[in-house]
């Protein structure tokens, strides 16, 4: 085990897979010589060669299309979209092409593309460096959607995403690259000393489609992913209620059994995500939970989310779910 922040652990995952598989190639804007604007690919070009780790032209649609073609023809491409907000020029290639190739060709062709992209708010990024567009992809059959939350699961899940034969959209909560975030912009710790900052060296995989129980509890089930896992942890503390916290990790297909078992146990549920509420992934979970857990539910399912507005710059702390809002929602489930 080595102490790593999330940037180092992602870099370590990529490095080990470049070593393990000759057909892994990594590309995107500024990822080659420079090593990426967040430095996730730092040093990889120098070590593995410039045809395996390289700068792409500034064209997300082109990046996704090239990945499609490489994956179809035997490579295992890992493309970086510099910010999730900039993934939309690639949306057609991802949704209509990458996601559907296996099905449309009757299983003759497939393309094991992984698209890594930093997502989410909390860095004063305004409209276009803050969004968390997971729901735009969970609505697309054929994709797997993963959202890591700490250095250890970042490495383990990215490894499995790259080795997965289906295309994976891999969201990295950029607010948590250098440390967990508990909702207080004036008190931002690093990963140093955090148990999930201890990461195995070399090859390390964690299974996709499995959620992680961060904290066991009996009074309420709190479900989240990405940065909000940590904010929810703080919210549970503030509520003083013995809530169970589940980090979903893979959103599509999601670990329904873990969630259903927990909600059947607690009878109460709060879903937390930073993306807007309407048609957010919390809506899908809420619907599925009531289908499976209706007779066990003691209170309406609560959602604590970003607002149904564009992501703001100056007022982002009033936009993102706060520990206070999460604590209030947990308490509300206890009132019934």
């Amino acid at each position: 085990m080595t102490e790593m922040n999330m940037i180092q652990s992602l870099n370590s995952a990529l490095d080990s897979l470049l070593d393990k598989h000759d057909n892994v190639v990594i590309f995107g804007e500024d990822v080659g010589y420079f090593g990426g604007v967040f430095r996730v690919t730092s040093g990889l070009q120098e070590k593995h060669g410039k045809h395996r780790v390289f700068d792409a032209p500034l064209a997300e649609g082109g990046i996704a299309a090239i990945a499609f073609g490489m994956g179809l023809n035997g490579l295992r491409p890992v493309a970086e979209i510099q910010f999730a907000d900039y993934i939309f020029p690639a949306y057609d290639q991802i949704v209509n092409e990458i996601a559907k190739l296996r099905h449309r060709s009757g299983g003759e062709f497939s393309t094991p593309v992984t698209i890594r992209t930093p997502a989410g708010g909390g860095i004063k990024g305004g409209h276009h460096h803050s969004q968390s567009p997971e729901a735009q992809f969970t609505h697309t059959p054929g994709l797997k959607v993963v959202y890591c939350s700490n250095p250890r699961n970042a490495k383990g899940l990215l490894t499995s995403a790259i080795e997965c034969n289906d295309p994976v959209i891999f969201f990295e909560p950029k607010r948590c690259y250098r440390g967990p975030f508990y909702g207080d912009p004036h008190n931002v710790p690093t990963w140093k000393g955090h148990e999930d900052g201890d990461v195995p060296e070399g090859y390390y995989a964690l299974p996709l489609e499995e959620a992680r129980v961060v904290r066991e509890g009996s009074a309420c089930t709190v479900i989240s992913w990405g940065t909000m896992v940590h904010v929810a942890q703080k919210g549970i503390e503030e509520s003083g209620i013995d809530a169970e916290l589940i980090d979903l990790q893979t959103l599509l297909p999601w670990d329904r059994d873990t969630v259903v078992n927990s909600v059947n146990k607690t009878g109460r549920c709060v879903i937390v995500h930073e993306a807007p509420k309407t048609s957010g992934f919390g809506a899908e979970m809420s619907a599925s939970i009531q289908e499976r857990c209706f007779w066990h539910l003691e209170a309406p399912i609560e959602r604590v989310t970003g607002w149904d507005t564009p992501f703001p710059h100056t007022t982002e702390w009033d936009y993102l779910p706060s520990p206070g809002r999460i604590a209030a929602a947990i308490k509300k489930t206890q009132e019934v």
Partner: protein
Amino acid sequence: MTEGGKGTMEPYTVPTAPFRPGDEADFGGPWKEQPGDLSRPDPVTCEASETHDHAHGLVRVLGDDDTASGAWNPELDAETLIKGLELMMRLRIFDDRMIKMQRTGKLSFYMRSLGEEAIAIAQTMALDDTDWIFPSYRQPGAQFVRGRDMVSMICHCIGNTEDNIRGRQMPVHYSWKEGYFISISSPVGTQFSQAVGVAMASAYKGDDQATITWVGDGTSAQGDYHYGLNFASVFKPPVILNVVNNQWAISTHRNVATGGENFAARGLAYGIPSFRVDGNDFLALYSVTKWARERARAGKGATHIEVYTYRAGGHSSSDDPSIYRPGDESECWPGGDPVDRLKKHLIEIGAWTEKKDEKLAQQIDDEVMAAYKEACTFGDLANGPYPPASTIFTEVYETVPWHVQEQREELGK
């Protein structure tokens, strides 16, 4: 598969920047292209094919001896030239002050126009006052030409209570309708094809308004750049389409944006007259833009311009170019510095002195500082006040729908 490994051939070409840290940058000495090399075709009757040499050459007016000459010399009077110099100096001094504020934690982020000041200033000066400006984040200087109050600009960069866009976007993402300056968006290149639509609307309405827009060399790889050229080629609206080739897209050299050497000539394939212009030559930029404006006014459609320049600063305050290019690369650029070149020309023609220059710089710096202090009276980054949280919910739609209203009440601010 690597060099010297399993084989000596790379499997495909991955371009390398010509110079990296530790290398000595060498652009081959002064420009070979000289003022007077290129004719000035009639903007009304010109066909794209007549601009072959202009797309492959370099339109210059200011020579290495600081004099102005050639068919593209716009023959501007000294007063206009001094105005241009003053505006470029204002932009640079403003940027310097703002980047200092960012470095000391008084702005969250900033982007300078360093080395590219002539672009927004000269090109906007060559337009009519009501022409549409559809900028990228590297042309905020157009606002100085149209007289935007610096206090208002700084309030936006702080995101305080007087920010006209209510703290919604990152610094430098200005919007200023009064100046026909369209809201800047972070996703690169989107404005380029949108500008063609703006120009088509002007033509539809019969307004004598042209639209000018810019993308960078890196962004010319985006679909939007090609959509814009193609729609402009088909519908021939009054639009001026610029590619600012400043050599760098963050860390990525222009040789990753195109496998060719030339950006301007791409326009010829679309049937659009195309020019490659020395982007650090105020007079050449002014003159070519004036030509494009005349063509637009005559209803003859678009002009495509490669503005050949060098990004002397970092991409943004978040960028450190010393990691990926030689520290002195900008000083080796044969095009020199745009502010310095116009100043030397004005001195050469006897219309300016170093003493006047120093005095003006001091005066502008004082004005910028005063504007910054005034802007902070409406809220500074550390302490606010900021726009109220209720502004999250307004102007999402024309009127606030029920579901947004409910969420506003839930926030309770």
